[in-house]
């Protein structure tokens, strides 16, 4: 009997951690990593602002889950979950993804190369402040990180890759080192400009 291969899942956080709420995607990924142990078929990627350079990771993924800051003109901190064909439509229709028309371009590029993810979901968050260069996440966005991580865990469960909630005090290898992890970064961040 041929053993069926588990679909490879990529959980991708996008954004610039140096730029206030632009950092949502990467910080949400970090929060997810801190709260859940994902199945072996799941990889996590801090995509930063790599844009088109992420195409190979998208190509390799059977299922793709993305955290990103999005601008739907909603209340700051509102989470928006979009799935399937709606993802590229949403990111392309207007300035939905703040990372360039980019992420839609990445998806299209993967499509052109003939490797489009079978399943696709976007967990977006409406930012409050994008002007504060060097600033921390704003409170409404920071308050949504755990919720965003929980939603990701639910979606991964629905995709057949259930996550294990980590026990309190479990030691977790950091996703980001060298003082740019969430806690260290925020510790030194300047308050927003008046």
């Amino acid at each position, binding site marked *: 009997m041929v053993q069926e291969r588990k679909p490879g899942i990529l959980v991708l956080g996008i954004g*610039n951690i*140096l730029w206030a709420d632009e950092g949502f995607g990467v910080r949400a990924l970090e929060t997810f990593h801190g709260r859940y142990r994902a199945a072996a078929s799941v990889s996590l990627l801090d995509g930063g602002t790599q844009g088109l*350079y992420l195409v190979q990771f998208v190509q390799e993924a059977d299922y793709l889950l993305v955290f990103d800051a999005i601008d739907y003109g909603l209340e700051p901190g509102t989470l928006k979950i979009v799935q399937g064909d709606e993802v590229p439509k949403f990111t392309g229709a207007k300035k939905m993804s703040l990372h360039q028309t980019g992420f839609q371009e990445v998806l299209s590029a993967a499509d052109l190369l003939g490797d489009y993810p079978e399943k696709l979901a976007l967990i977006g968050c409406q930012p409050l402040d994008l002007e504060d260069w060097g600033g921390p996440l704003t409170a409404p966005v920071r308050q949504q990180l755990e919720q965003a991580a929980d939603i990701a865990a639910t979606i991964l469960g629905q995709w057949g890759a259930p996550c294990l909630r980590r026990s309190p005090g479990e030691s977790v290898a950091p996703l980001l080192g060298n003082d740019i992890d969430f806690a260290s970064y925020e510790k030194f961040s300047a308050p927003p400009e008046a």
Partner: protein
Amino acid sequence: MTVQTPNGFTLDNSGKRIVVDPVTRIEGHMRVEVNVDEQNVIRNAVSTGTMWRGIEVILRGRDPRDAWAFTERICGVCTGTHALTSVRAVEDALQIRIPENANSIRNIMQLTLQVHDHIVHFYHLHALDWVDVVSALSADPKATSALAQSLSPWPLSSPGYFRDLQGRLKKFVESGQLGPFKNGYWGSKAYRLPPEANLMAVAHYLEALDFQKEIVKIHTIFGGKNPHPNWLVGGVPCPINVDGIGGVGAINMERLNYVTEIIDRSIEFTNQVYLPDVAAIGSFYKDWLYGGGLSSQSVLAYGDIPEHANDYSAANLALPQGAIINGNLAEVFPVNLRDPLEIQEFVAHSWYKYPDETKGLHPWDGVTDPHYELGPNAKGTKTNIESLDEGAKYSWIKSPRWKGHAMEVGPLARWIVGYAQNKPEFKEPVDKLLKDLGLPTSALFSTLGRTAARALECQWAADKLKHFQDKLIATIKAGDSSTANVDKWEPKSWPSEVKGVGFTEAPRGALAHWIKIKDGRIDNYQAVVPTTWNGSPRDPNGNIGAFEASLMNTPMADPTQPLEILRTLHSFDPCLACSTHVMSPDGQEMAKVTVR
């Protein structure tokens, strides 16, 4: 009103104003406003941008050994080059010497970035300024095959290959999902290639997209991961273990051989695809020699790629160092990044405050004090600018100057400096390309010249990759596997107050970081990036910057389709990702384009 700038441009802002404005950004955004005369020729250009104006705020008080991880996040494209510049600045301040292998591996990382960035820039961010995707749909695959085979021995060139590709492209366009191709002015008169050349270029667009992922594997091997590879003050973070046992993640012969294979494929792709494409495209745009801007008069290169470790003097750098001013190629001046009178940043037209804005500040003494206000002739509001007043402050980018001169940096600047220094490895390929195209040396000073210099540099960098890879393997085989010097790792071994500077040649131009360290922590950190040089606003004397200069006197086929503006700005490979709107003079949106 007509104004003569000290650097030789006649600015006339009386004609119709065209505004190219952003909607989004990655590292910063960019906006350009131009005035065109009645013949639609650009007679005034105003470039503005938001840049990472607060890196010093972010870094102050942090551990200098971590600075690279922050600076790696400044830019989505040249992550590694900022990290390298940062570790060099810290090593310079603390006088840390790195092992020879670390120097070779860093050069391999940096050259890999050059090759990767140049290929991706040309095919994915710039080619569509020259190539009409929609026209490719009407190409004859057989004729395309004949064209491709006449240019290069590259094997992917059969009629069937181009037919299949055209079919895929057609399906894609018909689905209404133009994706990466959606922001074009397809059908514009400013496009000149025949359908077959367009189809060939689109095929190579896709091949390059597929191939670029191989190139970055070199970063994964030496940097531990990609994106965001790891760096280390004192060397490189990858141990070498040629026997291949123990040491998880260590560099062994198998991995080194894999790197060699990728390098060989990069050389092949550059020689057989990238360069022939640039020459072929260039042959159709030989009379479109606009966009030279400052390149024919003032260019600057810091130099990079030290042959031997720890020697950053010009003689030891494979990429040339020097400054040329007033168009005098007979004299290349040395550049000293420590001299307070050479590199200075001005803010007379930038949204910052200095105690005395007629003077510039050297980056070690740099001040970043935001002060956002619109000039009296600006239109609109602070949150919704309709048009800027270039007589006042109008950009978040400061104006760096070298001895008071506005300078262009980047591949073209590097190649002009190397050419002027009569270095055969720079001069010969330039002369050959110009001869093949039947163009004079002066043609180099153009948008096309900038694009061609980048292609030549990609070829040069791929060959240099091979050199440092061979050197690394030879050193390792001779028994030296040292990759890091940790003698001064502990802050207690540092003096209480030091300062340093690190520099590189990023794919898009000269990059330097200046650091001051006090009691083991960062006290001041200033970075002057290539796009600050090229995208700078006017200085107190009225000299315009490289972007602004490059747009001057360019005729536009249709001002509502600013293809010529995008083509020239893209040729600088600006490190600003800019989706832009084209606005009509009354601020109404007319079209949407992407500038990068």
